[in-house]
């Protein structure tokens, strides 16, 4: 070992640290730029009409009311369908399927479903529902969103239930409480913040999903709450309006993008706040 060798190591270390810092700056630079553009264009397009009027034909003024309502309805319904099934399946993985090969298979499949391309799930619901029924519908849209909610909730429920200490189960079972009551009244209560966080994360994820809605709910220029008809929704409106050559449509698309981003970030922050407030301790 000599001074030269140590000098080379030090130089390598310095270069690596500078590069790592630059990489972080590089990553944050693009993301900052994207958020900045969305904020700027979004704020410029905000007006009261957004919340009182329907999506307009080209050249006319209008708002996004039907799209906001449609998105809320379909996302809500997607969570309502997907979350209970997800919680139950997560319960199976954590409580009944531990160490069993069937549980391992389900966990593996769920992880794949978790990152499967959403456009594929849209095509699935298209062939399953839309092609059979013969027309696009909000219900089909909700179903494809539920398929995205499902694996997220399964995963978090599984993880959260595993964090509950075994002594809690043993204590309840030794009192003669049947297992289903232990699960629903003790374990769910202990892991509620975690499960709610999972559902919130799923909600954030589906509120911006565009691809699966393209072939299921499609879009609708008019107001509707009929679940068996095509329904307007924010992501598809953004897609169609941004790809169009009309300026007023572009500005509506930016407004939609702004509120979408705002919603997703707020829900993400809320999920974080729940987790940090209820951080479980097992001592």
């Amino acid at each position, binding site marked *: 070992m000599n001074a030269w060798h140590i000098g080379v*190591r030090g130089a*390598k*270390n310095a270069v*690596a640290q500078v590069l*790592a*810092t*630059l*990489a*972080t700056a590089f*990553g*944050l630079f693009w*993301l900052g730029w*994207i958020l900045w*553009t969305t904020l700027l264009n979004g704020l410029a397009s905000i007006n009261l009409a957004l919340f009182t009027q329907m999506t307009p034909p080209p050249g006319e003024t209008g708002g996004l009311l039907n799209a906001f309502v449609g998105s809320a309805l379909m996302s809500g319904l997607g969570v309502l369908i997907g979350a209970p099934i997800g919680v139950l*399946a997560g*319960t*199976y*993985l954590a*409580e*009944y*399927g531990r160490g069993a090969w069937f*549980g391992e*298979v*389900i966990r593996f*499949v769920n*992880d*794949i*479903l978790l*990152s*499967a*391309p959403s*456009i*594929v799930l849209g*095509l*699935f619901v*298209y*062939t*399953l529902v839309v092609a059979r029924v013969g027309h696009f519908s909000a219900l089909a849209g909700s179903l494809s969103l539920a398929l995205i909610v499902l*694996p997220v909730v399964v995963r978090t429920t599984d993880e959260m239930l595993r964090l509950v200490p075994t002594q809690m189960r043993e204590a309840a079972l030794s009192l*003669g409480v*049947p*297992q*289903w009551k232990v699960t*629903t009244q003790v374990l769910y209560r202990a892991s509620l913040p975690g499960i709610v966080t999972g559902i919130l994360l799923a909600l*954030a*994820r589906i509120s*911006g999903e*565009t*691809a699966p809605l*393209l072939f299921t709910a499609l879009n609708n220029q008019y107001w509707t709450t009929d679940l068996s008809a095509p329904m307007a929704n924010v992501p598809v409106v*953004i*897609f169609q309006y*941004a*790809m169009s050559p009309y300026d007023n449509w572009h500005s509506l*698309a*930016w407004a939609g993008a702004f509120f*979408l981003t705002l919603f*997703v970030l707020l829900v*993400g*922050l809320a999920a974080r706040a729940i987790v940090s407030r209820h951080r479980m301790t097992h001592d």
Partner: protein
Amino acid sequence: MSVITLPVPTRVAGDAADRGFRWLATGAALLVLVALAAAAGSMLWGGRAAFGKFGFGFLVSRTWDPVAHEFGALIPIYGTLVTALIAILIAVPVSFGIAMFLTEVAPKWMRGAIGAAVELLAAIPSIIYGMWGLFVLVPALAEHVYPWVDAHMGSWPLVGVLFSGPPLGLGMLTAGLVLAIMIIPFIASVMREVFLTVPGRLKESAYALGSTRWEVVWDVVLPYTRSAVVGGIFLGLGRALGETMAVTFVLGNSHDLTASLLMPGNSIAATIANEFTEADSPMYRSSLIALGFVLFLVTFVVLAAARLMLRRLSRQEGNR
């Protein structure tokens, strides 16, 4: 002598409910399996007309002619692979740098805030990336970057052909760049998480022997987490392959096969998103669903590999 008769243990009242709940949970778990299998099956079924008519040639034919009902998947498959490859080439070193910065380099007070920001940003919907790409990045690249790339890199030997072309702004390189920006927070947060699983005593031992931070990351942290890091990269690759909205905006929707990365192209997901609602013949529609099946197969293989590699680390941890 009297016989003591013990009361026959009666079944607890909750027994039926207990079994019912168990079956309910098992059924829900089974539904996850059914959903994935049904998704694959339904797309194979929906694409049967295309697979039946074109056979294996569907995968290698570059024809895409809705008028003559002749379809081949070569161009979308090529575009999907090329854009995902560009994205991975850019995103992996940057994500590794971010993960290293967040676990070893940055001061403690900075780590939590930037880590949280990166995770929040990973949740931004992909359509926002696509829209930003179309309205901001495409004009910027067309005006300032691509003319330079064409003039300087276009004449390089061998790879020059990749970088020569008209500065349209739209195209494979742009799509790859947008995808990279999108998966950077994703891969970085997975890498950061697996780096944090390295036991402190391993790193402390290395530091105590006089290792530099770089040596700790490269010779201790990375070997310990190698399979999970590769798994995280594959997860990002899976996302890049299947991403729809971010690329549809900036790819240009062209069914021509060109070597240049500056020319418009197409990807599987973008083709489906652009053309599905306009597909007017059963064969057209079936070909698009068949494309979806191909995408499903490719991402399935990539994601399965990713999960197996990520699992190896957690198993290793469990044994300790």
